[in-house]
Every structure is written in structure tokens, then in C-alpha cells.
């Protein structure tokens, strides 16, 4: 999740991704009209409950658990978050190294590696 991105913009981005995914699945007959209706109703009923970017990601995880067609949307979002966090960590480590704070830099690198190998990805 991009912390620089406003909540509304992020919600729109997620909303558009979900909408495209649903439409494609329906056009390719991977979901029935009944399921299409159920998914649409669910999205409309629940997406507005999210008040933060983190809530949105929770919503997305829940959606992907419920219907597999959303798995890849979740994976992409998580990957982007991971990438962003990695970038931030790299910048921070470089800064610490510049300041000769090698131990602290190593600590952050370890922590990032642990998270990447099974830690949580909450934004």
C-alpha cells in the first residue's frame, strides 16, 4: 500500500481492479450471473466500511478468501506493499550505514528479511 496515496485514491484503485476482475470473470463465464450479483452486492455493502488503507487491504484479503478470483488482486497489492517496504528499508539501511550505525542497519535488514519470510503484511 502506498502511504503517499490518499485513502480515496487507493479505494478507487482497488475498486477499479476488483470491477475489472469481476467483469472479465463474468465475460469468460467463470462466474455465473447469480454469483456476479452476490459478489457485487457484497463489494458494495462492505467496501465503504473500510476507513483506512489498512482496512481496505483487510477487506481485500477477506474477499480473496471468499472468492478465489480475487486472489491475484490480493497478491499484486501485497507485492506492491512489500516492494514499497523493501525500498523504505533499503533507504533506511543506507542512511544508517552512512552514519556508521552498522549494528542498527543490520538489525533492520534482519527484521525485513524475517517479515519477508512469513511476517505479516499489514500496511
Amino acid at each position, binding site marked *: 500500500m502506498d502511504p503517499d496515496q490518499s485513502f480515496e485514491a487507493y479505494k478507487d484503485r482497488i*475498486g477499479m481492479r476488483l470491477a475489472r476482475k469481476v467483469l472479465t470473470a*463474468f465475460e469468460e463465464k467463470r462466474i455465473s450471473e447469480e454469483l456476479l450479483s452476490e459478489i457485487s*452486492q457484497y463489494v458494495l455493502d462492505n467496501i465503504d466500511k473500510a476507513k483506512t488503507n489498512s482496512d481496505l487491504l483487510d477487506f481485500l484479503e477477506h474477499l480473496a478468501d471468499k472468492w478465489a478470483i480475487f486472489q491475484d488482486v490480493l497478491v499484486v497489492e501485497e507485492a506492491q506493499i512489500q516492494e514499497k517496504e523493501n525500498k523504505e528499508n533499503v533507504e533506511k539501511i543506507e542512511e544508517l550505514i552512512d552514519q556508521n550505525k552498522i549494528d542498527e542497519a543490520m538489525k533492520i535488514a534482519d527484521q525485513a528479511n524475517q517479515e519477508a519470510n512469513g511476517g505479516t503484511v499489514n500496511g
Partner: protein
Amino acid sequence: MADATVIPQEAISRGYMHSREAGASRRAANPQEVSSARLSEKMGAALKEQNWQKMFEIPSQPRLDHARLGEKVDKIGDQNLRTQTNDSLVGTRLALEEGFKGGRISQQQQDRIAGKVEETIMRNPLLSREYLAINDIQARREFLVKHIEDPRIQRIVRKELQEIAEATDDLPNDAREKSYDVQEKTLERDSMQADRDELDRQIREVDHRLQEFERPAAGGHMGARAQELEDLRTTLTANRAGHAAQTQIVNNAEFRIRQLTSEREDTLRNPGQTGRRPIVDIDNEINTERQNGSAAQAEMTRLTGLIDRIPQLEQEEQHLNKERRGLRGERSAKNFELGKSNTALQRATDEYNDALRRREQAEYALGNRINDVWSSAVIEVANQDLTELAANMRRIHDEEFAGLKEGASKAGRDRIKELLDRKIETRGWRGKRGRTVIDKIKTQQISAEIIDKGPEVAARRFLSGAKNPETGQTYTPEEVSALLKDKDFMAEFQPMMIKEVFGRKLLTSKGFSPEDARKIVESDWGDQMVQGAAQRNEDLKNKIEEIMGIGAMDKPGFAKRLAQEAVKPKNVGLLALLGLLAAPFAGVVGVAAVGGGVAGKAGIGAYGSGKGHSPVFG
């Protein structure tokens, strides 16, 4: 979902569909595929607009069973109602599935829907205030169209129509059975009536025959048989005597004839004997005696007839009387049965009429439900909006008055909420849920009290029921009086109280009347409030200056001049503006803005920018 293949044939024949399109739709090979293709097309169009909410709205809208709805409407007996309902239904379907603008919906169908929505808006305090503040006809129409195209309203319309389609008992069908029952009972009754009529005829006949035996007490015309009987009885003795005399004559004649016959035989055995009369003479006398006997016999027979006639007539009268009694008895029994039959027929007829009336009422209810489907949807959404606005108003006020954590002001505010809000449970189409609503009547009463008597009376009312946080008991009258005299306390409490009360008034009524406005601005507290409100709110200030001139607010007597402008009958906009100023409307406008989609759809401030102004008072 648009699916021309399920448009009822009668709709096609009634000209709601061009024949070429109708033909094409009938030729569609697979309705399901057509439906899915149209669905994809619509969703794709929404995505092209980058409107993902709209895309999800499209498949989530409840489906409509057009065929079943059409069948229901066709069952409406009243032709005018049926035609109107069908037209409403077709118009609604086209508006929902092809769009209110640009589809095949006719101008008349558009106008009917828009008219219904307008009627409903005019009955709603918030919506009518907003609607009336729009002066341009085209803009007003757009306001109506915005409602008609609102997905929330369309969803309710669909849901309502689908409920109508799925209802099984909305048109009671027992009138037909009842009509058969009436026919059966009518036949029974008619048969009994015919039997009774036959008895009546027979009784009349017997009566007629008995009239011949009538013997009036004095004077009057005697019946023919009665006269005959009386005559016969009168002549009975003479007739009997005559009969006896004639019998004697017959006997004598028979005796004489036997003598003459004997004489004749002797004469024939002894022809020429002296002293004997000639045969001729004997024969002549025999003939004479025979004639005499025959005449007497005839007279005797006549007299016997007259004598025997009396018992005959008496028997005949007795028989007729007996027959009449029997017939009358039968008629009584038949009348009783006929009465029962008539009652049964009446009951069956009443039941039939009731069934017919129930059916008619159900048909009208169905017609009205379909014709009013937009009204009920607009009302439901308006109520949802109002609840949301009221909840947001409470939230904003909570934030604004967060400083009143404890002490008398908070106690007073708690009491205001306690008096003016109440919890209710509603049953919407998504099920039962509880919500807090504004008590409209109490709000109106206390608003009127503030306007007519000033804020102090209302402040006393609220504080009198409030709980003193220091003692845990309600404030005593002495404590209330002390609070009302406390300038610092009143400087905090009074604006807050007015904002709470007037905010609720503006949400639940058409706002302030010209008279209310005049009273507010002419009072010291109102003048101060208007000045304060206008000074604190840039948007309102700009609007006032646009209407009343730059710097108008800084000139002496501004509030009174504003009131004068506002009370002009045509100046609805200024009246609304005065409402904005004289009450904490800016807070409410802010609420509308917080409401997001709500404000966008039904923002209630005629001049509200929806930017969420800061509180005007306090």
C-alpha cells in the same frame, strides 16, 4: 437487466415496443445469452466511465420478472386502472433498464414518473426546501432526474416490483367460486319460488271456487252455489212430498198396467167372451198408464236430483275447504323453506360481493402500489438520508461540544438529547434495525417556545430535567435559576441549546416561516445570533452580499433588513438563507458534506456549498 425477450406480448401489441424490435426479440435464440451480453455491455460501459461503484450496482440490482408483473396487471378488472398501471409499469421498466433519458421511454411515461417523484419531494421537509430553492425549471427537472437515476432509489423500486411479482395472495381469487355459489343458490331459490307460486295459484283457484259458497251475513251478493243450496234446502220438503206423490203415481201406474196386461191376456185366451173389452181399448189404457208412469218417473228422477244435490254441494264445499287448508299448510312450509333459501342466497350474494370488493380493493392496491413505486422508494431513501443526516449532526455536535465533558452545560445537553431524540425499530427491506429519530412534535414545540418566548424559557425547561453532576440529582429550581443568571454559563449553554433545537427543526420541517424569521431577527438574542453567524461563515457572507450588496452586513439594522427581504413571498431563497443564518444550519450543511454521497445527492442547504462549515455559534 434489459431483456427484451421477457417483455409481455400485450405490451408489444399495445404499442410500447416497435414491431421490428419486438420481432427481433421474439427471434432471439437464447434469452439467457442476450441477457448476459447486455449485462456485460452495461458493466463495461460503467467501467469505461471509471465508475466501479456503478459497475457493481448494475448486477446487484434485484431482477424483475416482467412477465409475471405483466400478468398481474392484466388481471386488473378496471380498464382505466389497468391501462394506467400497465403504462406506469412499462415506463418504470424502461427507466430502470434502458435509462430514464435516451431509452425508449415515452415523454408521457417520463412525466408520470417525474410527477410522482416531485409529489413525494414536495411532501418531504428537507427535499422540498431544497427543491423549492431551485428557480430554474430545467434545473428542477434535473433535480428530479437525479433522484430517479439514484441507484439506491432504483434498487428499492426493483425490490418493490419484485415483491409484487412474487406475492401470491395480492389478488384474492375467490370471487369466481362465490359467484358459482350464488348461481346455485339462485336456482334453488327460483325452484322454491316456482313451487310456492304454484301453491298460490292452486289456493287462488280453490278460493275462487269457494267464493261460490260464500254466504254474506246480511245483504251482499250470495255465491251461486250458496244460493243454489239455499234454494234446494228451501224446496226440500216440497220436493220430498212431490217425490213421494210421483212414487205413488208410478206405483199405481205399474199396478194398473199389471191389471190391464192380465185382462188383455184373459181376453186373448177367451176371445168373444162377453163382458170383455176389445183388445184395442185395453192397449190404449195400457199406453195411457205407461205414459203416466213414465212422466211420474221422470218427475221423480228430477226431484231425486234436487234432493241429492244438497249433500253433493255440501260435500263439495267441505272438500274445497279441506283442500284449501291443505294447500295453505303446504304454502306455509314452502314459505319457510323459501325464506331459508332467500337467506342462503343473500348470504352467498353478500359473500360474493365481499369477495368482489376485496378483489377490487386488492386490484386498486396493486395498481396504486405499482403507480406509487417511485414515491415509496424516494420516501425510503429520504428517510435513510434523514437518519444519516441526523446521526451526522449529532456526531458533529458531539465533536463541537466535546469540551462540555462535565458540568452543567453537558448535563443540559444530555437532557436536550433525551427530550428531542428517541430510539425506534424499523423494518426495512434489508430487515429489522434500530435507529435514533428526532421527535418532530417536541422539536416543533420547543422551537416555537424559543421563537415566541425567547431562549430562557427553553433553557429552564431543559435544565429543570437535567441531572446535576455534582449531586447526582436533578437540578433544584433554585439551582436552575442560579444557572440562568450565570452569564458565563449562559454564554456557553444558550447557543449550544439553540443549535441543538433548531438543527433538529431544520431536519424535520420546512424550516422557518416568514413570521418565525421576523421574530428571530427582531429579538435581541436573534439579532446577535444572525450577526454572529454571518460574520463567522464566509460562504454565507458572500451570498448575503450577493443579494443585499457588498458590506450589507456591516451596516446598522442589517438583520432587520434581511428579515424584510426574507419575508417577501417570492423570496424563498432568502428565507432559506435566513434559515441558514438564524439557526445552526451551517453545522447541518457541514453534516451534509460529511455525509458524502448524501450531500451530493440530496444536500439540504439551498446555498450550502457542502464544504463543511465550521460551527456558526459558540
